[in-house]
């Protein structure tokens, strides 16, 4: 096996991740100080944050840094094909998110320093320098700076942006670029490694598409958008999305989707859209656990480690924000993933 050492390393690293019990105890801490004190007893170690700023944002950065550090450690020890897939899957995702944040900041007239602070701390991937990008005064100038990168097609959305004076044409275009890149790279993965990744990518995309369709139900229909809203579809094509947008009985439609979609989307009945994402992450966590147990010495282990890391990061970000806000544990536990696997 080409990546046996990476698999063995991932097995060791998985054991370093926070257990569901530890996560639950963290979620149940009384306040932010207790949360920071308890997390210092874990492999995260001592965390020091600036008292003057927003503590939850500072902590979010800490957790992101840790996650990026974990990804890069794995990328460094995996073969090229897998490494390039992992880089695109994570780094490009973060870069797309950073580009969206840059565009939003520029659109809203946010000072460049503030935009820079809101970016995910990753090393440049396709974009050479974000510092240079955030200092551009207009969206058009940002587009010029993206020439020669995989995001150069973004400039095709400029006329629609000017017409609508909204950023959604760029955001959709970025989603499209990311989805196409990932799909291409998934296909390049060795076939035994492809199945689990594909299952996750497809599930994520399908659910996100359905959530976009759910939002469209409440908006004025724009036919130009419907096509571009769903650049990539898997189990449910654009026709199915249209059917969802136009369906009168949402419950019946969701039941008709079958499992695991019905279970993941069922919080929509109670208008708890955020819980859909938690259910999706829970499903991914479960799938990865199952995938890992099915093949303890394959790519599944590497992917499982990274997925677990990301879910841990998301849970910790959510917890730290809720602690900073003084929200009681019972109000957030439902939205967390790992504590449910005790």
């Amino acid at each position, binding site marked *: 096996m080409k990546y046996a050492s990476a698999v063995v390393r991932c097995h060791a690293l998985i054991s370093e991740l926070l257990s569901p019990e530890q996560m639950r105890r963290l979620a149940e801490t009384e306040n932010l100080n207790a949360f920071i004190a308890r997390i210092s007893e874990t492999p995260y170690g001592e965390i020091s944050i600036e008292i003057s700023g*927003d503590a*939850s*944002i500072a902590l*979010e950065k800490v957790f992101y840094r840790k996650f990026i550090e974990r990804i890069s450690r794995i990328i460094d020890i995996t073969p090229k094909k897998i490494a390039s897939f992992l880089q695109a899957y994570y780094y490009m995702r973060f870069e797309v*998110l950073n580009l*969206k*944040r840059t565009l*939003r*900041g520029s*659109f*809203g007239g*946010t000072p460049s320093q503030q935009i820079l602070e*809101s970016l995910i701390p990753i090393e440049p991937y396709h974009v050479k320098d974000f510092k240079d990008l955030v200092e551009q005064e207009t969206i058009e100038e940002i587009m010029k700076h993206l020439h020669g990168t995989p995001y150069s097609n973004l400039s095709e959305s400029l006329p629609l942006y000017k017409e609508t*004076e*909204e*950023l*959604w044409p760029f*955001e959709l275009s970025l989603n499209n670029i990311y989805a196409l890149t990932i799909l291409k790279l998934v296909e390049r993965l060795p076939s035994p490694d492809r199945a689990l990744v594909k299952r996750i990518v497809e599930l994520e995309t399908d659910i996100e598409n359905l*959530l*976009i369709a*759910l*939002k469209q139900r*409440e*908006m004025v229909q724009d036919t130009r958008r419907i096509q571009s809203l769903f650049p990539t579809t898997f189990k449910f094509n654009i026709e199915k999305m249209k059917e969802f947008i136009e369906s009168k009985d949402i419950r019946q439609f969701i039941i008709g989707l079958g499992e695991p979609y019905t279970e993941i989307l069922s919080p929509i009945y109670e*208008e*708890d*859209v*955020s*819980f859909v*994402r*938690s259910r999706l992450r829970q499903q991914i966590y479960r799938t990865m656990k199952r995938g890992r147990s099915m093949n303890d010495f394959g790519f599944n282990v590497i992917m499982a480690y990274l997925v677990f890391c990301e879910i841990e990061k*998301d849970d910790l*970000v*959510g917890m730290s*924000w*809720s602690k900073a*806000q003084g*929200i009681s544990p019972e*109000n*957030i536990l439902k*939205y*967390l993933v790992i504590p449910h696997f005790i």
Partner: protein
Amino acid sequence: MSSMSGVRPTKGYLMDLKRRISFIERGTEFLKLKRDHLAKELSTSLEVLRGRRKLLLQNLRDAYGALTAAYLSLGPTEVKSQVRAVKKRLELEVLPRSVMGVRYPYVKFLSKPQVGAELDVTLSHAAKKVQEILEELIQTAEFEARVERIADELGKTNRKVNALENTIIPSYKQVIKFIEDKLDEESLEELVRVKLIGGALARRRA
């Protein structure tokens, strides 16, 4: 009687006082009407306010729950970033309005926030909930200010009515009675004097 020291016991002054007291009594009647009206308005408004606050509190709880869920789903930085895309913000103008002479603030909406189409579904769901209660929240605040001003005015009117009924009108009545007594006394003295002079003149003629 020290309070009567500056009083001129003349018919002219008495007539002036009587005119004044009838004006004050009429004013008191009007104030009583205003007081009753304000009291009625206050009790109705309090009922409405209680209902509105209960509903608002529930809606606020729902909106806060949705916002918390959106933060947990996206993380604080992403929420802040997406919020930056909201271009049209809430603009208000506070104008004065008056009911029965009671001035209270009236809030006029100049522009409502326009939630961008690019907001994530969780955030757009929370934003919709917040937007729904925003108007309700401002209207409740406006109504609360109105109720407060009515309660203030009711207190003032009540104090005025009490002062008029218990102090001013009785003191006027006292002065009027004093002048009337004085004038009666003077006219009696005058009558006795006339009678005595009349008797003396009759005796001289006889």
